[in-house]
């Protein structure tokens, strides 16, 4: 399968398109259908296609797995901190996140950073699960 020229040439321009669509879904998650989980899953699908078509070494040359796990952990900590603010201030007089305006990405307050963090976490976790399943953690 790795030597099929049609598959390789089609994937060379399909993978950036899939990634662009995933980033669109993540960035517009609070004002249109989608969100962090759906966008992150589509992003991880593009990594999985690259893994299947170009081989595991190609993907490993792009991301180091230790770096991937570190990014994921840092994103989880930041997510916890931002979400804790949202929980703690829900009944008090501190400022609430605003309701977003359709068409304006920056109108949602801290919902946009939360969506971006969830997207990164889901993409990393889905790809790591797939890699552990496929290669057996070598």
């Amino acid at each position, binding site marked *: 399968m790795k030597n099929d020229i049609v598959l390789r040439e089609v994937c060379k321009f399909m993978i950036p398109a899939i990634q662009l669509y995933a980033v669109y879904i993540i960035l517009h998650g609070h004002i249109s*259908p*989608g969100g962090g989980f*759906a966008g992150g*899953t*589509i992003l*991880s*699908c593009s990594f999985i296609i690259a893994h299947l078509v170009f081989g595991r070494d190609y993907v490993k040359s792009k991301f180091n797995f230790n770096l991937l796990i570190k990014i994921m952990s840092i994103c989880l900590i930041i997510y916890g901190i931002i979400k804790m603010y949202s929980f703690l201030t829900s009944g008090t007089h501190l400022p609430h996140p605003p309701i977003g305006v359709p068409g304006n990405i920056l109108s949602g307050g801290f919902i946009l950073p939360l969506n971006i963090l969830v997207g990164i976490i889901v993409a990393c976790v889905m790809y790591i699960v*797939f890699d552990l399943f*496929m290669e057996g953690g070598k």
Partner: protein
Amino acid sequence: MELFSIIMLISLIIFSIAVSVVKDLLASVIVFMVYSLIMAILWQQLNAPDLAITEAAVGAGITTLLFIIAIKKIRGDKK
């Protein structure tokens, strides 16, 4: 639109029975993927496009891939 939804609901019942009846494991996985895709269209019909995107990505993409890898691991590498 009512007729379209009813046809898809009936096909969902047929597919869900077929998944457990079909003997070939690979065919069963493919029928399950088609079930997920039709479910995604049905979520769209029920005004839940958010769920439709997630169902299409997770149900038809990741789950099918993991099932196919599991079948490959069970049968061994016969090349």
